[in-house]
């Protein structure tokens, strides 16, 4: 930003990390990694899930301590033993899961952990300061609002303000776009550009190639804890180049997908209303159908009712109004058993907390849905040998890497855990499947495997509702896509038009879009 200086060596290095090693039990998360950040740049840190991006940045933010290696900030050697030290050195991290206390106000959250005011919280005075800071950087917030009342985008603004208030010069943003709609992403990007222009530096962690191309000045790519490209210019790199650096081999961007042949209607939901965990309206009159042999995608920004819809469909959430008809029976407000009886299977978003019982064995986890059926059930008894046999079959079929089927699943890796769930849900030969973020947190190879399995199910005649925040995945897998916004279906997209989906994701209805198009044509 210092005008037109051609002298690259004069660009100040804000952060230099050298030969960082960090080992977790069983994983080498960071293997002699070097990283450099220059003043006034947006530096993307690219890599698959589990490549070690977050670990590296958590070390820089003082949350983890590296096993070995050195960190220099503004040329001075530093050791951080807590995030506080990092912040004092001007490094602030904005985590993917916001670190905000929901029951406290914006101001309270921003002042958390500081030493001023020392004792009595004179909030009125500070509310004003927060407003001023927000105006300076173009981040408007209501300082008196409680965090839980704010939208995700607003919460992100609070997070950024929190770091700016602490005088952070380096902002680490961990997958900041994962929770935003395309239009909100544009706003975020212009805010980031604005901040860089004011002398801040930004590290942008992502695994989304197009975003990285759009926003970053330079980029560093990690694969399995190692650097595959360090601080290269983002210009002139094609997506295929980046993908190869990330994955280590060619990636095919299209799936081999047959044309779907939709059959009879398996699921029909009519006018469904429900509340979320905070007792606020989460679904507001949702209606659609899913036919056998098709994958219907549900797009939307996180928190617009997708989770609640999945819950309602699988009997985990009370439905205020409306019907959920599966194979002719209304199963609204019955428990999960009713759905299971009709062959509903469910890949939940939260694998460890909902999908599995961590301290129980692989066997106990795979029989969760069919322990009442023969041969695993024998009257009121459970036939343990045949349950184990069944588990061993699934283990071989789905490549679950585990020493024995009696191992507790908490010892399994993320990918293996997902395979346990998939094995259980698919082996029941579902008529209708709700798959929520089925590929989240998996590496590319595993993602392909899961996607193929889903397509296989579709071709075998299952009706699938795919809920995902990854638009690319939705478009490539789904036969048609509904868009949900604030608990209402905005419309249906059959041609995979990203722009249309994006507009609907921010609350434009299909009818409005069509009207606008018509006007435009006139």
């Amino acid at each position, binding site marked *: 930003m210092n005008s037109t200086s051609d002298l690259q060596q004069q660009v100040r290095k804000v952060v230099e990390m050298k030969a960082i090693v960090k080992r977790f039990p069983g994983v080498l998360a960071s293997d002699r990694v070097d990283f450099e950040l220059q003043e006034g740049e947006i530096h993307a840190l690219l890599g698959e899930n589990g490549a070690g991006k977050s670990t590296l940045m958590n070390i820089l933010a003082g949350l983890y301590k590296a096993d070995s290696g050195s960190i220099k900030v503004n040329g001075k050697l530093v050791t951080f033993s807590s995030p506080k030290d990092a912040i004092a050195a001007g490094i602030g991290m904005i985590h993917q899961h916001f670190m905000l206390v929901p029951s406290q106000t914006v101001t309270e959250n921003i002042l958390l952990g500081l030493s001023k005011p020392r004792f009595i919280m004179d909030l009125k005075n500070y509310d004003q300061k927060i407003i001023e800071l927000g105006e300076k950087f173009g981040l408007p917030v209501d300082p008196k609002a409680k965090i839980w009342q704010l939208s995700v985008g607003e919460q992100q603004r609070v997070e950024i303000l929190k770091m700016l208030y602490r005088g952070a010069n380096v902002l680490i943003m961990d997958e900041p776009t994962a929770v935003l709609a395309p239009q909100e992403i544009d706003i975020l990007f212009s805010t980031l550009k604005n901040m860089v222009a004011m002398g801040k530096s930004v590290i942008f962690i992502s695994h989304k190639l197009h975003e990285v191309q759009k926003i970053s000045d330079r980029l560093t790519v990690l694969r399995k804890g190692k650097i595959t490209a360090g601080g290269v210019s983002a210009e002139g790199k094609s997506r295929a180049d980046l993908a190869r650096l990330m994955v280590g081999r060619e990636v095919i961007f299209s799936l081999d997908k047959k044309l779907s042949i939709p059959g009879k209607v398996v699921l029909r939901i009519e006018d469904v209303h429900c509340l979320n965990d905070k007792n606020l309206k989460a679904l507001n009159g949702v209606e659609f159908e899913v036919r056998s042999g098709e994958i219907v995608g549900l797009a939307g920004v996180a928190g617009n009712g997708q989770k609640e819809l999945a819950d309602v469909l699988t009997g985990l959430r009370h439905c205020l109004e409306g019907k959920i008809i599966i194979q002719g029976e209304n199963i609204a407000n019955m428990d999960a058993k009713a759905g299971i009886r009709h062959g509903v299977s469910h890949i939940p978003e939260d694998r460890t907390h909902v999908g599995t019982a961590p301290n129980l064995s692989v066997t106990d986890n795979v029989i969760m849905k069919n322990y009442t059926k023969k041969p695993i059930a024998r009257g*009121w008894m459970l036939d343990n040998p045949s349950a184990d046999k069944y588990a061993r079959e699934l283990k071989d079929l789905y490549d679950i890497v585990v020493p024995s089927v009696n191992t507790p699943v908490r010892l399994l890796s993320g990918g293996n855990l997902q395979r346990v769930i998939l094995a259980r849900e698919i082996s029941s030969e579902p008529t209708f499947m709700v798959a929520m973020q089925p590929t989240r947190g998996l590496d590319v190879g595993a993602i392909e495997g899961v996607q193929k399995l889903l397509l296989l199910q579709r071709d075998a005649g299952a009706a699938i509702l795919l809920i995902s925040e990854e638009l690319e995945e939705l478009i490539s897998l789904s036969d048609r896509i509904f868009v949900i916004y604030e608990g209402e279906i905005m419309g249906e997209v059959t041609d995979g038009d990203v722009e249309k989906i994006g507009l609907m994701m921010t609350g434009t209805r299909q009818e409005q879009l069509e009207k606008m198009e018509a006007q435009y044509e006139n």
Partner: protein
Amino acid sequence: MKTDSAGNLRRRTILPFRIKFEERISDVPKWYPFMISFGAVVVALLIGAIILLLGGGNPWLTYAHIARASFGSIGVFSDTLVKAIPLIFVGLACSVAFRMKLWNIGAEGQFFMGAFAASAVVLIPILPETAPKWLFIIVMAAAGMLGGALYGFIPGILKARFNVNEVISTLMLNYIAVAWNNYFIFAIWTEAGFQMTKVFPQNAWLPRLTDLGSEIPFFRGLTTHFGLVLAVIAAIIVWLILYKSRWGYEIRLIGDNPKAATYAGIPIKKHIVWVMMLSGALAGMAGMSEISGVVHRLQGAISPGYGFTGIIVAWLAKLNPFAVIFVSILFGALILAGREIQPSGVPKMIQGVILVCLIASDFLIRYRISIVRQGAEA
């Protein structure tokens, strides 16, 4: 799940080494938890000795006394078994409930209600005094279990319907049960104004070994009663339920992750009520066996805190029904010998220390601990 659990200990930089905790990522061998528990008990006894010393007692004499007074002869061992019987039932009651992470602290109250209901069979009377022994035992056992089960139903339904914390509700119900019992032994069934009922007819007594004394002289004077057989049967049934049945699978699933259980279509609320009732029935059975096998009447002081000791028994047995039997014998010894020990709080104190050490020792099962030299990890 990557953890850096050393977080809180990281600040200890004064020492040349630091203690490093890592979450275990592989299974531990089967014997390992037992060794840890055993070690915890040893440490607990050492700590107990220190407290005794501070309290002005002589720990060595106290421990020696406990050993002699409970295992010293076949006669006292028989008495130890008698004390172990209610502990087995109550330990099983707690094991079942704890397996579902349902903190039934109300075994004491359910014990009293079981004793009350079993006594009612004799005292109302439901059966005439001349009824045959087998009938008495069956009806009294059924009544005892029913009494305990109904008393377990209350906190169960309160938790299922109103989400009332079962720890507090079951505890409150303990106090209520004692007052309830007191009312009956003071006001209704009192014998000549004393705070106890009349002695039950012999037919309402559980058979004892000494009853066989005329045929087998060895059994003469031995107080161990038929309740022991019932307790072992109960342990087998509980084992079958927990590890071999569909219901047991459901209980374990709910205990480990209620969300996963809901997701699998298991009605948790219904299970809360049923498991509380099963737990209550087992505790009620403890009350019945104590009334019918030992005290032979209903009175105020029928439990030296069996219901609470059962919690420790269950925990030490790692909720395994068969281990409950052995652990119960150890604690039966402590209770038996404890009656004569001064100061009188010693058994309670030792129980407390054992439980504290046990809970602390679980950490060693979940984590691997190593000592790392400070320089090695700069």
